[in-house]
């Protein structure tokens, strides 16, 4: 039997929107970024579906960082709600994307054992969360606005940011990125933010949006993420 199938193939990584592997202003890239040209691959690999995460992978409080690690009270800092959509390049929602976030606490300290910045830990805040996007590709996290902190790349401090890890519907659409806050004076001098090409880096900055519900509880920020999407390519299939 022969029939024509519309085989979805993934659009390529658009390197005009992505940082280079070696970007000397961010010093660690110099010894860690690959230097040989990437080897192109045939389509087979691009069609690999991403792992399927059941809703069992996400606990009921995983999306609420103000509650998922409390020991004896509430975490300190400005409460914020971070929400948005995960879409592909055509604006189609990416459903059931696994979003994992991690961040510093309000004082700019990570709960990580390696973080030596002498700012206080918050016993009621771990700074890790996750959720799955819904049918419209929407997600919501409740958290605390992360503080800035100095880092060993010269004299600078990192702007306030939340780390985002996303698994969409394809293995190759994997994305790890960082969300920044509008108007942060550290952005123009941050090597990591500025590693993204000028025309694309603004996509990393969230928008302040007064919350429609619960405006007295938290500040609202919106952050949409665009993942590589499928394009339909006609292909003959022999069965």
């Amino acid at each position: 039997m022969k029939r024509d199938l519309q085989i979805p193939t993934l659009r390529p990584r658009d390197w005009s929107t992505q940082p280079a592997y070696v970007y000397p202003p961010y010093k660690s890239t110099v010894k860690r970024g690959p230097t040989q040209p990437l080897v192109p691959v045939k389509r087979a690999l691009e069609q690999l579906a991403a792992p399927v995460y059941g809703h069992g992978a996400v606990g009921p409080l995983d999306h609420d960082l103000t509650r998922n690690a409390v020991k004896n009270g509430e975490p300190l800092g400005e409460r914020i709600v971070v929400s948005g959509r995960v879409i592909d390049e055509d604006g189609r929602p990416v459903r059931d994307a696994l979003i994992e976030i991690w961040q510093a606490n309000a004082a700019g300290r990570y709960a990580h054992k390696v973080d030596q910045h002498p700012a206080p830990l918050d016993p009621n805040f771990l700074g890790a969360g996750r959720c799955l996007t819904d049918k419209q590709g929407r997600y919501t996290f409740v958290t605390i606005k992360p503080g800035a902190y100095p880092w060993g790349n010269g004299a600078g401090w990192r702007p306030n940011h939340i780390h985002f890890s996303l698994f969409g519907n394809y293995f190759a659409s994997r994305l790890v990125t960082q969300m920044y806050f509008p108007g942060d004076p550290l952005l123009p001098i941050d090597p990591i933010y500025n590693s993204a090409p000028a025309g694309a880096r603004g996509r990393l900055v969230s928008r302040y949006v007064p919350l429609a519900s619960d405006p007295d509880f938290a500040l609202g920020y919106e952050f949409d993420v665009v993942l590589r999407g499928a394009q339909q390519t006609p292909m003959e299939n022999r069965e």
Partner: protein
Amino acid sequence: MKYGQTPSQTVGPYFAYGLTPEQYGYPFRAACGPVLAEARTPGEPIVLTGRVYDGDGKPVDDAMIEILHADTRRKYLFGRCGTGADRECTFRFETVKPASTGPRSAPHIDVIVMMRGMLSHAFTRVYFDDEQEANARDEVLADVPAERRGTLIARREELPGGMVYRFDIRMQGRDETVFFDL
């Protein structure tokens, strides 16, 4: 195409309590981890282990490796492991030997590499040194310059505890691992 892709940013040094919390002993349940195979997963149980080396040849203690492969039922298994949980900076996955997924595809494991100092993740692939015939037919391997193919081949070692494949990832240098434009 209406929207541009969101730029990647580094995973940074502090991902462990968010992405690999159980492996590193943080009080947060992990969504996935370094054990891919359950007791009833068909196939030969194997361990895939190795280190990530930077351009100075130093082992990287804050890399995160993700792997995906097919088992003998063509079911895909996924795992994640950081290199900072032991002193040797190793990643170590417990899984089963992958099956071939097509006539021009040798058994292999797809790999995502990320770490502090990498602004975008990199894709590579693990092939197996005891699959030479299948490797010779593999269409992805065929597109890799012959002199660099060896960087993608894991070495089989029969140890008392079971079958181990070693696969080191070199970010730079003469033996820089092949990364794919995927």
